[in-house]
């Protein structure tokens, strides 16, 4: 690449005084970036960059809020474009549509009032007797790498990293970064998310994990447990982070692979976390919201049962034919987990 002459071919006499392509500055800034990257990657829970990011988040909050407010009307833009092609419809059809829309509008106004009342009710924290703080989602994730939302409350409102967040449908995520006036919530559908969960009907306990495509998978449910499509998945309370019994979703498919120790269960979340939605941040748990000794015992027994089955399969694989080695490998993988 040409450093002198700016590409003016055929004019060798014309040159710059000093070609300052920024090489030195580039090297210095690359070194600085590497240092920042290293320091940032080694930070866990707190540190300079966590504080800096919190400060930046606080400063950026009004802009995020503004962006969210501005884009709300455009969320129905698709409908507007669709309606532009409706000029083929007859006047009668349009009149009927108008009547329907007028009726629908009245219903929606009523629903809005109801929603306002429900939001007030949420503020009273009555639904789950949660000790919580109401907040509002003001932005989604700014990168393509994480499924997070930003809420308009932070450490100044008593929030802290690790607190669970719920909406009217159930648990939606957990705070992973907390600034003074805003917090970042990792949604349960994020691929790095895992929540202790259980199937409500059979009390089978497992871990609900997110995935890159946003779907949810319920793992570590042993195949000797009972799970059916349509079962509700709720938080188990194990780990002491999420209150016990909050809805997480419904089972939409259950697969049992030959020789596998655990089911492959797909779960549909309770609902999307959308902009401007009211959420509750659970600030502390009461005793009855934590997992009981019986729950912990049941989880241990379930784990022991799975381990015993794995050992049994491994033993039979060793004693039996060479063709059963697949079972042995399954057992090994489950031990690894």
């Amino acid at each position, binding site marked *: *690449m*040409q*450093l002198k002459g*700016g*590409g*003016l071919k055929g004019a060798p006499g*014309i*040159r*710059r*005084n000093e*070609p*300052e*392509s*920024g*090489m030195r*500055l*580039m090297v210095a*800034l*690359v070194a*600085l*970036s*590497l*240092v*920042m*990257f*290293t*320091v*940032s*990657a080694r930070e866990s829970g707190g540190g300079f*960059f966590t504080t*800096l*990011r919190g400060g*930046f*988040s606080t400063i*950026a909050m009004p*802009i*995020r809020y*503004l*962006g*969210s407010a*501005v*884009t709300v009307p455009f969320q129905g833009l698709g409908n507007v474009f669709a309606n532009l092609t409706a000029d083929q419809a007859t006047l009668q059809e349009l009149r009927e549509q108008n009547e329907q829309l007028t009726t629908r509008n009245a219903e929606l106004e009523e629903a809005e009032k109801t929603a306002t009342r429900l939001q007030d009710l949420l503020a009273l924290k009555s639904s789950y007797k949660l000790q919580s703080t109401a907040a509002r989602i003001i*932005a*989604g*994730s*700014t*990168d*393509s*790498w*994480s499924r*997070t939302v930003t809420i308009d409350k932070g450490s100044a409102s008593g929030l802290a990293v690790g607190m669970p967040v719920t909406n009217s449908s159930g648990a939606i995520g957990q705070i*992973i*970064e907390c600034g003074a006036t805003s917090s*970042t919530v*990792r949604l349960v559908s994020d*691929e*790095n998310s895992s929540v202790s969960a259980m199937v409500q009907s059979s009390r089978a306990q497992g871990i609900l994990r997110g995935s*890159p*495509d946003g779907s949810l998978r319920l793992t570590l449910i042993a195949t000797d447990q009972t799970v059916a499509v349509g079962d509700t998945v709720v938080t188990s309370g194990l780990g002491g982070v999420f209150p016990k019994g909050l809805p997480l979703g419904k089972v939409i498919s259950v697969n049992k692979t030959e020789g596998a120790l655990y089911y492959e269960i797909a779960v549909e979340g309770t609902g999307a976390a959308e*902009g401007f939605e009211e959420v509750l941040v659970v600030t502390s748990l009461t005793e009855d919201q934590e997992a009981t000794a019986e729950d912990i015992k049941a989880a241990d027994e379930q784990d022991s049962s799975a381990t015993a089955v794995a050992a049994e399969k491994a033993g039979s694989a060793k004693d039996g034919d060479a063709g059963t080695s697949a079972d042995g490998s399954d057992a090994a993988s489950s031990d690894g987990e």
Partner: protein
Amino acid sequence: MQVNDSNRNRRSIALLALGCLVLQLALAPNLALGNGRINFALVFAAYMALTIGGRTGVACGFLAGLAFDLCTTGPVGLMSLLLTVASFAMGMEERNRLAEDPSGSVVLFLLAAAATTLAYHLAMFLVGQASSLFDVLFLRTLPTLLLSAVAFLPFAYVGSRSSGSPLSLGGGSRGLHGRKGKGGGRFDLGSL
């Protein structure tokens, strides 16, 4: 040679940076294609590198990357590193390339954007943020590149119409090079 240390230019850069920051914070989260989102930091860095380049372009790339890193939940320093290098590569010639050769600039931007986006997502993959290379390439890198390329087009259009100061519009105003509009002389002998 670009003269880019005037107060006017600094104000223009600051305004443009602020505009891109607002777009990154307010618009990018609400416009998604798959898992991809527009990277306005990349757009800003590329615009600065292709219109001014040199030290200013490199510094703008670094700061834009840092702002992007602070907006996200990923490690700080990764995007700033990539945008610093990309800005250096795009702005080595230190001329208003966007005005002189718009189509070539867009191609250069696409190459730099592809490299930057791919490197960023691969780095995230290598630090264990994803388990599937398919997901990294086709659900994150490609949509992000596509959206960022679309977002760059208006900037490229504005940049290609600029004369004189690379950060201003105007058909006949005397620029810092003494050029009069697109297609004029590239250099002002008085500034050499």
